[in-house]
């Protein structure tokens, strides 16, 4: 295959072209700009998905002089990111109008962020992965502070920027150490270097430290303990659609990059960092679930829930098995649906200026606005991992993978955490349906946002009852690169 095989990066080219086009065209379109921007963004995202689907997914280790790979794993993740983007555009158009935020910039940043995530999952070189991460991060910093007249949003953007810069530095330092030890930053080259050592103890300290720092750097992105501290504040202050995006997009991309590094750069049969990841998983679940209990603000509640879910996902990394990693990929999709669905409702209920974000503001929503309350209930029930939802299937396979590796204690800790999570997710349901309704005015539901909310609710159940196609796709994606 040609070294410069354009279709391998065509999706990212489409995304960036669409982003640039919106930036250039927006000033000339005037009041039509909003709709045109949204349409163009959706077109760009759909185009990137089409480009992925049309490219033959014959696994190729390194194209563009060892910079990107082409495989099913990358394709799966890129399709997922395109789906996230489309749901985001549909869900946030009305929000942008309500908050009088600039549309063009928002869409452009979203497209660039998606391109960044794509490079994170297709990068075949630590430098490429890092560049992808930075494209994503810089776009997200701006998005977090997008409501620039609101101090909360400013705080969020600032905090996220400092924390992100810090984690990028750690990551970069790790990459430098790996380069120092192995003489390359290319996944394949490092892998060959590491294969020379039969015992873990023989590995150069420099290399071990470097990989540890890289893992730590990504732990910031996925909000895994002990690098989770920024999450509640940033999630609370950022505009709600951006929070939704941060909770699914960068998290999935971060985990996908971790999977690549831990199983393509490190030999898959040398799970060196399992013990550390295990500790991180337990800690993350505990911090997330226990932290969520006292929350009174729904965005903070969902922030802690997102930390908790990072903990469940880490179980997949700990198992280092096909079942566990495929379960993670499935979980990305399930988590995308339930979280975007939940945040879309939060964005609508929050009202102008995002003033109504307390859980108590949901009082009486249940029977008054079933279009919002029932999908939200489905999403919360799915987050809690109750059967007949996508969340259950994800947890079921994650726990099964851990049982397969005989990590019984870890599973017991995980199920006790799930139990705790049931309590705080149900509290929202209690407030919506069971407490005496307040006097709040009805929430207006714009068509596009309504479609996103209902679709997320319905798909969560559909995926919970008929998960086979997606499960098969995720296990194929994992096999496509573990087999190599």
């Amino acid at each position, binding site marked *: 295959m040609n070294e410069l095989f354009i279709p391998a990066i065509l999706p990212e080219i489409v995304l960036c072209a669409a982003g640039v086009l919106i930036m250039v065209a927006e000033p000339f379109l005037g009041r039509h700009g909003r709709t045109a921007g949204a349409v163009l963004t959706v077109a760009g995202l759909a185009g990137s998905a089409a480009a992925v689907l049309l490219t033959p997914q014959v696994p190729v280790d390194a194209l563009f002089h060892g910079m990107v790979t082409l495989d099913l794993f990358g394709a799966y993740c890129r399709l997922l990111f395109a789906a996230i983007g489309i749901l985001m555009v549909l869900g946030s158009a009305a929000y942008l109008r309500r908050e009088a935020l600039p549309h063009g910039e928002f869409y452009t940043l979203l497209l660039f962020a998606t391109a960044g995530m794509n490079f994170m999952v297709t990068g075949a070189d630590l430098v490429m992965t890092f560049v992808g991460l930075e494209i994503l991060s810089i776009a997200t910093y701006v998005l977090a502070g997008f409501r620039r007249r609101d101090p909360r949003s400013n705080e969020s953007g600032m905090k996220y920027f400092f924390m992100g810069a810090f984690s990028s530095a750690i990551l970069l330092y790790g990459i430098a150490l790996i380069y120092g030890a192995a003489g390359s930053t290319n996944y394949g080259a490092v892998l060959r270097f590491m294969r020379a050592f039969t015992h873990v103890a023989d590995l150069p300290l420099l290399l071990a430290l470097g990989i540890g720092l890289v893992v730590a750097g990504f732990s910031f992105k996925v909000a895994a303990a002990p690098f989770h501290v920024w999450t509640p504040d940033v999630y609370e202050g950022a505009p709600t659609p951006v929070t939704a995006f941060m909770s699914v997009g960068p998290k999935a991309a971060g985990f996908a990059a971790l999977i690549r590094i831990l199983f393509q750069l490190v030999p898959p049969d040398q799970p060196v960092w399992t013990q550390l990841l295990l500790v991180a998983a337990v800690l993350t679940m505990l911090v997330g679930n226990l932290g969520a209990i006292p929350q009174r603000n729904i965005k903070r509640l969902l922030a802690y829930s997102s930390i908790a879910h990072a903990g469940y996902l880490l179980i997949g990394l700990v198992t280092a098995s096909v079942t566990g990693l495929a379960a993670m990929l499935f979980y990305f999709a399930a988590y995308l649906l339930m979280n975007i669905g939940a945040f879309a409702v939060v964005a609508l209920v929050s009202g102008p200026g995002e003033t109504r974000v307390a859980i108590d503001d949901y009082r009486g929503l249940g*029977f008054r606005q079933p279009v919002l309350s029932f999908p939200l209930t489905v999403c919360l029930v799915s987050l809690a991992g109750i059967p007949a939802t996508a969340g259950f299937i994800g947890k*079921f396979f994650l726990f099964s993978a851990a049982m397969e590796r005989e990590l019984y204690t870890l*599973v*017991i800790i995980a*199920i006790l955490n799930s139990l705790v999570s049931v*309590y705080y997710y*149900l509290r929202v349901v*209690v407030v919506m*349906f069971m407490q005496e309704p307040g006097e709040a005015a009805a929430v207006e539901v714009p068509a596009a946002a309504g479609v996103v909310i209902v679709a997320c609710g319905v798909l969560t159940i559909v995926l919970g009852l008929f998960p086979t196609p997606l499960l098969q796709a*995720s296990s194929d994606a994992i096999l496509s690169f573990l087999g190599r």
Partner: protein
Amino acid sequence: MEHLLSIVVFLPMLGAVGLAFIPRARVGAHRAVALAAALAGFAASLVLLARFQSASPDFQLEEFHRWFAMGGFQVNYHLGLDGISLFLVLLTTFITPVAILGSWSVTKHVREYMIFMLVLESGILGVFLSLDLVLFYLFWEVMLIPMYFLIGVWGSQNRIYAAVKFFLYTMFGSLFMLVAVIALYYWHGQAAGAFTFDYPQILAAMEAGRFALPLDRQILLFLAFGVAFAIKVPLFPFHTWLPDAHTEAPTAGSVVLAAVLLKMGTYGFLRFCLPLFPEASVTLAPWVCVLALVGIIYGALVCMVQPDLKRLVAYSSVSHLGFVMLGLFAFNIYGVQGATYQMLNHGLSTGALFLLVGMIYDRRHTRLIAEFGGLAHPMPVFAALFMIVTLSSIGLPGLNGFVGEILILQGAFAGNATYGILAATGLILSAVYMLTMYQRVFLGPLNRDENRALVDLNLREKLILVPIVILIVWMGMHSSTFLRPMDASLQKALARVQQVRQPPPVIHEVDRLPAGGVGTGTPVPQAAAPTIR
């Protein structure tokens, strides 16, 4: 391919989907459609009864489809009916229309209420008919959500506390069950070479000796399954959610809770714990029996001092379900037959009691015993029906309760005389608290003005109660109708435990069965039970 079982399970769900499309304002239509769907479910389950082959101990009318898979991981949609589940299915489909008919007093969000009732029914039926462990877990959990809403939205004063407590308690148990299911999957797969969640297949591997669990693993799995079931039963000391949930739930919610939901726990023990983990069952039986006895006596004692009618009925469930557990863990055919029979009895009599209490609550908006007295004068029909149900609950010969209790006591005595004596004490206590309650509510002078104006039952209320009373008498007078179809399956469920256990020496003395046509108890095959260890 046979689809009868799927039809029975999903007919109510179909009704619920239909309800969602009827405009909110048409309350009458909601009630009618819900009742029609529930009655259709009952009719479908009568077809099951007609098609059922009593002589066979195996699963019948099985349905098997692949459901979902990942790699080698295969979960199936596998339903099947046997003598154990047959009558529990019938009980469910019978009680639900009765409960729906008894919910006319619900006026808030009628459509959603009926939807949840029907979804609940589907969930419960799925639990009784699932033969794949993951499918079983799915139905087990899915049925929680409608019940949670029924208690939390339509319940009385303390409903939110009760609903959340109910949900968390059940979830706690069932998560352990999930872990046990997955563990069983891997352990069976590693030993037998075929990875599956299919219950009959795992059981067959165990019977054929391809898969033997060491005692310590059996005990772990027994405990993990058992905690889920024990909470549902509820076995003392896991019972504390029950009084709250029963008392706070709306009438129909309490009826379904008491009549069928609790049976999911005892059914679980009988279906899974005894056959799959026989050695652990025998090892742990003394503990279970002692807890059951504590439940019997503790529940009865609490009932004696209970000022609230509904709470009294709730605590009586703790006591009655203790009997069922004692019968199951006696490990002989009398005990197990009695336990299964008692599950049905309790469903009918406690369901009826909750309905009766609901009717008086609708009229007086209080449930305190002290507020009543002499009600037999203004409401003679009500008093008469209440009397019959009370007598059924305390086990008067000639009514259904007697048959179950006498069988359980026989089984218990055969196993351990002390257990039998203590259980019999519970029986006496139950007569004491039920009759005292009856006396205080219905007899004596009518000394409160509010009670003078009470009107007797209307036609709808009579329609609710009369079928239950007919069944109560039928099950008391002609028990073989119900015992015979169970027999073969119960023998099979017991076989593995009995292999492990040494036969009790006194078993022959109980062959002589008294009264009421109990006479289907086929002799226990004790000769074929040499000890294994």
